[in-house]
């Protein structure tokens, strides 16, 4: 496993994750939930390649970013349920 950790914030909570992984993977490693659907169901990433948008989160103030397409970066701010 990668050893170099970096810090990101998810829903205001500061967490350490391995460098190089995707935002989606970081959230899964931390056991954090992804979005809720319009009907209120829990959802999580499905396609892993940017097509399904189930992993969408707000990243650094920009909504609807795909967690599976974005690599974590020091100081990144992630908000779920955007």
């Amino acid at each position, binding site marked *: 496993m990668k050893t170099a950790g970096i810090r990101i914030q998810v829903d205001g909570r500061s967490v350490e994750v391995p460098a190089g992984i995707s935002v989606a993977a970081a959230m899964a490693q931390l056991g954090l939930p992804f979005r809720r659907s319009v009907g209120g169901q829990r959802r999580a990433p499905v396609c892993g390649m*940017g097509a399904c948008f189930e992993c969408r989160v707000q990243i650094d103030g920009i909504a609807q970013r795909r967690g599976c397409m974005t690599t974590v970066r020091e100081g990144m701010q992630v908000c779920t349920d955007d």
Partner: protein
Amino acid sequence: MTERYDVAIVGAGPGGLAAARAAASQGARVALIDAQAHAGGQVWRKDIEHGWPRRAQACIPRIVEHPRIHWLAQTQVVHADAGALLLENETQAWRVAYDTLILANGARELLLPFPGWTLPGVTGAGGLQALAKQGWPLHGRRAVIAGSGPLLLAAAVTAKRHGAQVLGIYEQADAASVHRFARGLWRWPGKALQAVSLRGQLAGIPYHCGSVVREALGTDTLQAIEVETPRGSEPLSCDLLAIGFGLVPNIELAQMLGCRLNEAGVHGRVEVDTMQRSSVPGVYAVGELCGIGGRDSAWIEGLIAGHAAVGAKVQARWLRRQRHAREFAESLQHHFKLSTRVRAMARPDTLVCRCEDVPLQALRGHADARSAKLATRCGMGACQGRICGSALAELGIFPRGGSRPPLFPVRLSTLGDPISNPHQGSCS
């Protein structure tokens, strides 16, 4: 100002990489554009723990660092017209003008609705591979791989390599068909070797043919599945279900450019001639876009298009290799044809559109995607119908509607930068 290139290539999988290397070798200035952080596409996706596959590792660094190739990672094409692309990355939008465009933007996974498919823990088969390679934790997780096609074997190997306990592989095609496919593999020795190697790595993991997952069960997360095999229905406790039914060409960009499609099958593909030229002058298409064929046809077609695009000679032996690779694609389509049981998986209350939570029963009676969209919001969400549209086409409910710009959700400021205005936009 607008950046100008002799050749712009969309997609950095094997097809786009081969095209970039070929065009650059002939002296062309090339832009190689991909939405992912690393080149390789899906089949050669870089694994954050294990790196690129050996063959990819041998060629990718040299291609993306080539002095005449401008590698544009994490860059999305959001709009296109004759001679220019509108691109967006994390920080800006800009315009790239080209003399020749090579489309190599591949395919996505065909995901089909069944009860429980929206539960966290259920992913695509290729989806699980992609997630594992970007750091998704699989260690000690009990995984079931299901759906159809040789991709299931590759997904199982990736899951195992990342520490998952693979409980079994459930293939919808019947055993006779799968065996006929395997017996015909001698014609493609590379594929035969790959199949043997995959099976070897999966020793001890049961492979069930003629099997369909009926339901995924759990509250808020997957806990078990109900799978129907030739021996009857059985429940199976698991943490992950990776289920995919093959691949669908990503034709949206080609469609926007006006490329003629071959719509003989359920999912359209771009029509090309032997030089990979589409019906639109100056626009080429290679690989999965022209019909699902895998890595080998993508690579050779990229080589052909990369040369043809800059007026260089295309060798006859490349064309022979291309035809041979395409014959493999036909064999694949034929032997892993989806059974009617797969099309009957969704129940009336099963959600089909995951973005807008639209159930199958709400879509009956609509003649086309547009009518369904206006009445139910089906296909109106962030994925722009990429998942439900392809699924509905496969189920025979109605064909997928045409695409409209932007190709992906974009920032408002990007839309304020009209592609038709060459004086706007900045360059990285």
